[in-house]
Each structure stands twice: as structure tokens, then as C-alpha cells.
């Protein structure tokens, strides 16, 4: 943890506590506390008790459930530490048994979940000044100038952060290397744009004053769209200085105006999505133009259109009804393809496969070429777009009797019908596939280059579908060979079972492995098989820690459908993170819960879920971080 964050969080919680009324929780959580407290005493008090308060945490002070409810943030932190396997520490005298860890986590979750929403102080979170990422830059230039040159394809790749998306504001930088390319991109797109798109006004005569006034008209008209908000006279005057410079150099009028507009394209007001600070520290409702930009960059990865600007001018974009109407309108626009395309691959962790950083061994699977990779990664994106266009349920992502294919994907699956590059909906012939679990891209991304991995697939399922990631394995742990195992005496299942016999491994692997075995009929490149590399019949059965057993992908999917609310919340967290451009924090719990509930009420339909996000509290509000001088970086801790 940084030095600064706890301090900022502390100040923040002081600000909130003043308004917080004691929350009310369900009775069974209260009953549970009597049972939980002795466990806290046993495993936590030694370091976080009355004698020692490591990290400033004293759990012994928590004497009743009321005390728990007074500090939800503290308990979000406890939950996180338990989930990451960081507490109790590895060196603790008494390790925490996996089932007890689960029980503690379940209790904390339940307690936090049942806090009364009406009485909780809310925090919309902080979104950092957001540089347009590569896709947003391309699309914004396209919509601003009507030139589809995709100049940002030449920019350095954006990193990812937060929920795992490349639109995460904190991890978007603007280094000198990019700045140089932005200057070149501005030259290129302005040279290609038509004069009317640049709002170039021809001066009536050649007098310097007339020329300057005409240039001013261009600057005003252009900057308003480029900055995505009304522009102050001082800002236009600043742009005109660039025009004046060109005039002094005797540059042709139109060239001078273009040079001035280049300045607009280099302005931070164009390159960044700025949400202006308000005077008071704390939460505030976003302005109209800020809402327009949030909506358009969420759904289109691009700037607002004229209709959104008009509604912003009429001050209607904080009205939930208007927001819902706009979401419906915007999702029908072809530009909304950007949402499915940019969100889906990153959500499903397919980008490493798409880029070739991971994937099937090219010698063993030479037919898994780059065009095949890209087509297969397009399948889930097309599927997601289908959910939006068809007003369908996100539960189809778990289980469906259809998928989307283009010619390349159909060839890969050996299905006749689709041809060409366009994706179309295809009815599946049997229940083996359906939803994302039957998609070759997902199955390949969760395999080793030479063999399938029930562990990677199970881990992926827990992290992506159920949002219950497992902590990393201890260092130096023995691993299974990564070759195809054709020469092994025992099946992969037998070898994994042996591995699981170690109680240190069993805690997590009893949850991970059975899920993965349900998908063993799919090989490294997602093809259906009934035998492994050793010629032995595939055993696709599994028993989950709760006792539920299944055999094969169809039954596994039914079990996952039984956890549809857990999935809906997992999905909501990711989409909300994408929509906001920040990671999801403990204080978002209530919002995520409400959005998921709204979606459930409306048949889990994706457009309903998107609307619930766009009308949610953190989407319509923001907060200014208190200005806290950050401490200098501490000297590294000495090694033990």
C-alpha cells in the first residue's frame, strides 16, 4: 500500500462519518457474529488487538456487530486480505484452514451485503484526468473530422490497470514519445480533413482584421466540438495567437487556420477528458457536458454527437429518464459496436492470446494462425454485440444454444453456412458448446501451449465468471510438466489428484480443478475430443467443494447458471470498471449490488444492465480527492 492512500482514506472517512447514520443489518448476520468473534480472537488479535495494532488495525475493539457496521471500509479490507491469502501471514503459528477462511469470508461478505443502503454514506470514487486511449483517439478524430485514418494505430500501446482495461485513467500516460506522435497525427489528419469539417470560414477581404475575425469564427466553432464543451473567450484568444504567428510569417490563410486548429488538437482539453474540480472537497454531481462525454466514451469510445450536445445545453443529462432514452438510442447506433469490441476481449482475458503473447504451440498447431486467432477472438465480441442488439440476457454468456461465427470461425469449428468476414448468429447442433465456455478463444487462452490445463481453466472460471480469484501458489511449489503428456504413465487427472493430496495445495485446488475438468473435452485449440494424448478416454466429471457433481460442459454450465446472481455481480463489476475508467473499490459494493438487482429484475438483459450503470451514482457523480501532500517514498524494507 502506498503511504498516501490510508491517510487520504482516513481523511475521507472522517468527512463521511459525520453524515453516516448507524446502518441496520439482517438479523442472521448479527447471530453469526457470536460465532465469528472467537475466530477473530484466535487468528487476528495477536497482531491486530489491544496489545499490538499492526497497520493501525485493532479488531479487538470490535465488540458487537454495531462496531462492524460503523466501519465498512475496514471490513472490505479484511475481506480482501482473506481473499488474497495474505492474512493471517504465511509465518503465522496457526495457519487458517481453507474452509474456515471461506466461512469467515462468507460472513464478512454477508454482513457487508446486508448493510442498509439508505443509511450508508456514498462515495462516487475518483476518476483521474483521462487521456484518450488509442481507440478513443481514433474514433474521436473520425467523428470530429470525418477522416478514418486511424492514426493512433502508430501510437505506443496503452497499458491496462484497474479492472483490466486499457481505458483505465490512472494507467494512461502521455510520455514525450507519444507527444511527438500526436503532433504528427494532428498534421496528418488536418491535412486530410475537408475545409467544412474544420469550420474554415473564408475572410471577406484580405485586411488583417477581417482575416483574424474569420479565423476566430473557425476557432470558436471547432474548439467547441474538439473540447466537447462550451469554450471560454480566453481559450479562443489563445488559439488565435497561433494564427497570429502564422500571419507574421506570411503563411497562406487556410494553412494558418489549420496550424491553429492543430494547436486545438494538441490542447489538453482535446487530448484528455477533464472533469473539472469543484471548490468543495467531496462528492459532486457531474456537469452536463461531462455527462455527455461519459456516455459517449462508455458506449461509443468516442466523442458525443450533436444530439448529446443539445441535451447537455438543455441541461437534461442528469435526468435518469433522459439518460435511459439516450442509452437506448446510442446502443442502436453502429458506433456502439465499440463497446462490445473493446470490453469483451479484455473482460475475458483474451488480449494476450490475440497478440500472440500466449497461445498454442505453433509447431504442434500450425493451423492456429494469426488470422485464426483474430477471428476466434472476434466470436465473443460478436456474441456480446448480439446481446446488445437483440436485447438479450447476459446469462447467455454462461449458457446458450447459439453463437456467432464468420467464415473463418465456422471453418475452425467445421460448421457450414457462414462465409466472409461478417459475423452471423448460428444455432448450435448440440449442448456441448454454448456461451463463452464453449468458445475456442477462451479454451485456447486457458491452455498451455502443448496441453490443456484444468487448473488454468478453473482459475479463469473462478476469476472471470464468478469473481472469486484464488491467491497465487506458494513459491517453489512443484508443477506438472507442460508437454502433452503422451508419454506419462498416469492421466493428467491422476497427476493433479496426487498434487492435491498436499493439504497446502488442496484448499484452492479442490475449488479450481473440478471446474476445469468439466471442460477437458476441449483440446488446446478448442476442438472437441473424447480421448487424451495418451489415448485414454476423457473423464469430464467433477465434484465441487459443496458436493455438487457434474459431468461434461453442459452440466457444468447448468451449475454455473445456478450461481447467476454471483455471475451478474462479477460481470457488473467489470462493466462498471470499464464504464468509469477506474478500478472497483470496496465502497462500490452497494452500487454493484443495485445494478445487478436492476438487471435481474429485467430478465438479466444486457441493455438494462448498461442503463443501470449509466444512471448509477458513481456514473453521474465524482469526487475531488482531498489535497494531501504525499509522503516521500520510503526506503526499502530490509530483507528478513
Amino acid at each position, binding site marked *: 500500500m502506498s503511504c498516501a492512500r490510508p491517510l487520504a482514506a482516513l481523511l475521507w472517512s472522517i468527512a463521511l462519518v459525520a453524515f453516516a447514520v448507524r446502518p441496520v443489518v439482517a438479523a442472521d448476520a448479527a447471530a453469526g457474529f457470536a460465532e465469528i468473534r472467537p475466530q477473530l480472537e484466535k487468528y487476528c488479535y495477536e497482531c491486530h488487538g489491544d496489545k499490538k495494532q499492526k497497520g493501525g488495525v485493532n479488531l479487538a475493539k470490535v465488540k458487537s456487530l454495531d462496531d462492524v457496521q460503523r466501519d465498512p471500509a475496514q471490513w472490505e479490507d479484511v475481506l480482501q486480505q482473506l481473499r488474497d491469502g495474505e492474512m493471517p501471514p504465511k509465518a503465522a503459528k496457526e495457519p487458517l484452514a481453507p474452509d474456515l477462511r471461506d466461512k469467515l469470508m462468507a460472513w464478512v461478505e454477508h454482513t457487508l451485503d446486508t448493510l442498509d443502503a439508505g443509511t450508508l454514506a456514498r462515495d462516487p470514487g475518483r476518476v483521474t484526468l483521462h487521456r484518450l486511449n488509442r481507440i478513443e483517439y481514433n474514433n474521436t478524430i473520425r467523428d470530429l473530422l470525418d477522416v478514418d485514418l486511424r492514426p493512433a494505430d502508430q501510437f505506443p500501446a496503452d497499458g491496462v490497470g484497474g479492472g483490466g482495461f486499457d481505458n483505465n485513467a490512472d494507467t494512461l500516460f502521455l510520455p514525450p514519445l507519444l507527444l511527438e506522435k500526436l503532433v504528427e497525427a494532428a498534421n496528418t489528419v488536418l491535412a486530410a480533413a475537408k475545409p467544412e469539417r474544420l469550420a474554415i470560414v473564408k475572410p471577406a477581404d484580405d485586411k488583417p482584421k477581417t482575416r483574424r475575425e474569420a479565423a476566430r469564427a473557425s476557432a470558436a466553432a471547432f474548439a467547441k466540438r474538439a473540447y466537447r464543451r462550451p469554450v471560454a473567450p480566453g481559450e479562443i484568444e489563445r488559439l488565435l495567437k497561433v494564427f497570429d504567428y502564422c500571419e507574421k510569417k506570411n503563411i497562406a490563410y487556410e494553412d494558418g487556420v489549420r496550424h491553429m486548429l492543430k494547436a486545438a488538437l494538441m490542447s489538453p482539453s482535446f487530448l484528455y477528458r477533464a472533469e473539472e474540480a469543484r471548490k468543495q472537497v467531496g462528492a459532486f454531481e457531474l456537469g452536463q457536458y461531462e455527462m455527455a462525454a461519459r456516455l459517449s466514451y462508455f458506449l461509443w469510445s468516442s466523442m458525443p454527437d450533436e444530439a448529446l450536445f443539445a441535451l447537455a445545453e438543455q441541461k437534461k443529462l442528469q435526468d435518469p429518464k433522459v439518460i435511459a432514452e439516450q442509452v437506448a438510442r446510442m446502443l442502436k447506433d453502429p458506433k456502439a459496436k465499440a463497446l462490445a469490441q473493446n470490453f469483451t476481449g479484455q473482460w475475458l482475458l483474451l*488480449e494476450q492470446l490475440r497478440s500472440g503473447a500466449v497461445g498454442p504451440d505453433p509447431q504442434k498447431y500450425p493451423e492456429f494462425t494469426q488470422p485464426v486467432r483474430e477471428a476466434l477472438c472476434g466470436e465473443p465480441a460478436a456474441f456480446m454485440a448480439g446481446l446488445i442488439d437483440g436485447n438479450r440476457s447476459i446469462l447467455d454468456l454462461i449458457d446458450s444454444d447459439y453463437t456467432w461465427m464468420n467464415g473463418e470461425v465456422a471453418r475452425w469449428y467445421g460448421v457450414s453456412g457462414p462465409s466472409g468476414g461478417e459475423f452471423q448468429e448460428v444455432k448450435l447442433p448440440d449442448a456441448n458448446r454454448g456461451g463463452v465456455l464453449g468458445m475456442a478463444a477462451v479454451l485456447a487462452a486457458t491452455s498451455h501451449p502443448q496441453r490443456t490445463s484444468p487448473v488454468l481453466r478453473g482459475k479463469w472460471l473462478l476469476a472471470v465468471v464468478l469473481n472469486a480469484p484464488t491467491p*497465487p501458489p506458494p513459491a517453489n511449489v512443484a508443477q506438472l510438466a507442460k508437454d502433452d503428456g503422451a508419454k506419462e504413465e498416469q492421466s493428467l487427472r491422476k497427476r493433479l489428484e496426487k498434487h492435491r493430496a498436499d493439504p497446502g495445495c488442496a484448499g484452492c485446488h479442490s475449488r479450481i480443478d473440478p471446474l476445469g475438468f468439466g471442460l477437458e473435452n476441449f483440446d488446446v485449440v478448442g476442438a472437441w475430443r473424447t480421448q487424451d494424448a495418451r489415448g485414454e478416454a476423457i473423464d469430464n466429471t467433477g465434484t465441487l467443494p459443496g458436493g455438487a457433481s457434474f459431468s461434461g460442459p453442459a452440466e457444468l454450465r447448468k451449475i454455473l447458471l445456478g450461481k447467476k446472481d454471483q455471475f451478474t455481480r462479477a460481470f457488473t463489476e467489470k462493466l462498471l470498471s470499464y464504464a468509469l475508467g477506474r478500478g472497483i473499490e470496496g465502497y462500490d459494493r452497494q452500487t454493484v449490488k443495485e445494478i445487478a438487482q436492476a438487471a435481474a429484475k429485467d430478465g438479466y438483459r444486457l441493455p438494462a444492465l448498461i442503463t443501470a450503470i449509466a444512471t448509477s451514482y458513481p456514473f453521474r457523480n465524482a469526487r475531488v480527492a482531498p489535497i494531501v501532500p504525499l509522503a516521500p517514498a520510503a526506503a526499502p524494507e530490509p530483507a528478513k
Partner: protein
Amino acid sequence: MSTRSWHISRRTMLRGLGAAVALPLLDVMEAPTLFGADPKVVPRKQPVRFAALYMPNGVNPHHWSPAMPGPLSELPSITAAFEKVKSEITLISGLCNKGSFPLDGHYAKVAVWLSGTSITKTTGADLNSGGISADQLAAQFLGQYTRLPSIELSTHNPTNFVDNNVKLTALYGSHISWSTPTTPQTRETDPKAAFDRLFRGQGGADAGAARPKALNPWDDSSVLDFVLDDSAGLKGRLGVNDQRKLDEYLTSVRDVERRIQAEIKHVKEPHRVDPAALRALPELGERVRKVGGGGRFDNPQAYAERVRMMLDIILLAFWTDSTRIATFMFGNEVSGQNFSFIEGVKGGHHDMSHHENNADKLEQYRKIGLWHAQQVAGLFERMKAIKEGKDTLLDNSMVLFGSGIRDGNAHDPHNLPIVIGGSGGKTIATGRHIVCKNETPMCNLLGDILARMGLQVDKFADSTGPLKELAG
């Protein structure tokens, strides 16, 4: 056009800016206090260059270090790649970054390789390497002498992944150069773009063809001056975190402005460049155009060629004194780069690094390490062939090559594999294996490197003093 003088360090500049627009105290300005006081700059007559070449995933530990300290005689099979330049290198054992110990896994070891600090555990919101890296510190004080303060290169785009199991963004594993603790230096991954950026108009493509003909390339100054003005207007309306982002932008604007000034100066009073270097430029320009874009993984053979080009670009940048500071990453940490173009290697790099003491995998891991060493040895040989007065380009350089872990199987951060090519202007007694006391800070070496470039720091991160053995 701007008339500001750029002969001040960037850090001083940031401070001046802070005073001018009444910034609140930002960590971007505060973190370099690791050094106590500003480093003292002692410009050197003969420039000394510094490059750091990072190999991900550690190295087969059984084939790297010679058994005994002292003069290099017989080398183990990986470092044997340096046989032809044995008298020009220094192998150092026993170094480590203690700051990288607390967090398990790969990523924590990479971001701090050149800073000796500890990263903040985050998926992105509090991204912080704990300190500025040695190369960037040098660039901030010495960058004023060259057209580019530094260059940062790789062949792979940053790993676009948040590891939910360890709650870390893979950005940490993709950056060794940090200009501030919160700003990783973005790397150029396309050889052609890297070449054009350095050698525009000297064999590199002429950018800005779309600019009005009557305007000089450096008329962008009027645009950049506008940006500085415009940012000041926006700044007053932003919260503190946003101001940090805007500062990052302003620093970049000033960097580019500074570069434009340097280009103008370069045109007005071209400094002496070895004519042989100028002849070599168009040839490399041809090659980079042939191999095409970088950042991808699809073609292993093209990967090998791109690596070679990036190393040649560094060589030419040093030779022409276009920059004196460079970093290069062979790949991001946990790289699964396919090395099947090496005979006998079947798998990806990271997989092989987790060899579990299996003889076959260890051998493949050794071969991958050897390939890396061969690329670096080739660079050393080419640098040795270039004369600079009585000495060679290699003599006047320090090229650090190594990894942030030793044995990849255990993510072992002790006794890092480290070799330095060149003698830093004949100040390092090369041709030896130096064995330091176990857990000697890597920063002792980094502090020495900075001193040899003309940057005297009392202390660099967790350094405890100079590596006296270096001078012989």
C-alpha cells in the same frame, strides 16, 4: 518561438513551474529526495554512455558465473558468449535489490531493477515504482547535452493484463525506466519508428510532410507554447491527482520543445560525427524498413531480427552522440516469447524458466539465456570495432546486461546475473569476475555508473557505498 534556456535540469524546471502556477506539493517533485541533495554534475570531456539491457525470466544459474573471482579465464557456457570481448567485460556476483524482496512473483523485481526501491501493490490506481530509475536520473541531468535525453526500447508491447491473483498490473513487469516514481517511460517497440525518431532527415523518414511548406519543422514551438498556456488555464480547475497527470503532459511538452531547440542548434552548429557513422545510418534505415512493425509475437524469426535492430539503433545513437542513455527490454517479465528458432528449444521462455530442475528444461533454459548473451556479445564486439580517438566506443560506454531474478524457477532475487560491457571511459578494470558480499545492493553499482557518467550522488536509493572493486 520559445526563447527559454534549456540548459537547466528538468527537475529544476519542474520546480520553477511549480512556483509559477502555485502548485500544491506533488509527489512527482518530492520522490527524488531519496538522494538527499541534488547530484553534482561534472561534465566529462569524452562522453560516457550508459545502456541497460534487460532479460526477462532470469537465467539458468548453473551456467552463468565463473567459479572463482578474479581475472576471467574459462567462462561457463552462457557467459562464454563473451569470449571474444572477455577483456572488455566485468561480471559481478552477489548483487541484489532488497526492495524487490517483499512481493513474491516476477513483477516486483522488474520495475525496480534500476531504482532499487519497492513497488506499490496495485492494479493501477496507486502505480508507483518507489523511485526514479538510474538511467532516467542520468537523463534528467545529462540529457541536455544530446538531441534526445534518453531512449527506451523493447520488442514487445506492454503486457495488457491485470493479474487478479496477485493484484498487480503487468505494467510493472513491462518497464525498467521510470522518469518519476509514478511515470513509467513508454518504450518504442517498432524499430522503424525508433530509427526515424532518432535519425530524422539522416536516413530516417522525414516526418511532418503534411505541415504547411512555409513553416519550418520547428515551428511546432508556437503550438507547444500554446499548449503550455492552455494547460495553465486548465490546471487551476483540476483536482490534485489530475494535476499530476497534467504535469506529466507538461513535462513531455517541455521535453519535445527542448528537443526542437536541440535540433535547431544541431542544424546551426552540427557537431562532429564520425563520417563512418553517417554512412552506416542509411544502411540500418533500409533494414528497419524491411522488417516492419514491432510489438508483436507472431513471428519468432522476426523477433530475433528486431532485437538485433534495436541493439544496432542503440549503437548508432551512441556512436552519433544522439543520446548517451538507453534502455532495452528483450521482453516483458513473464514473457512467453517462443524461442523455437533455437535448435533444441521447444517452448516459451517463461515456461522454460520454471524448469523444476528437469534436465531437459534446464538445457532449453540455458540455450535461451545463451541466445540473449550472444546478442549482447555481438553488440559489444561491434562497439569495440568503432574507434573514438585512441579508445573505442565500447571503452567509452557501460552496457549493463542482466535480469531482476536469478533462477526463474524460484523467482530468486538474490545474486542477480549482471555483466557490464565497457570500461566507462577507462575507469573500470575490466576482464574480471567481481564477487561481492552476498546481498550487496545493486544500487552500489548503479551509483558507481552514475558517478562515471559525471553525476555524483551521495546515495542512490539503498546504496551503502561504492563498489571499490570496480576500479581494480
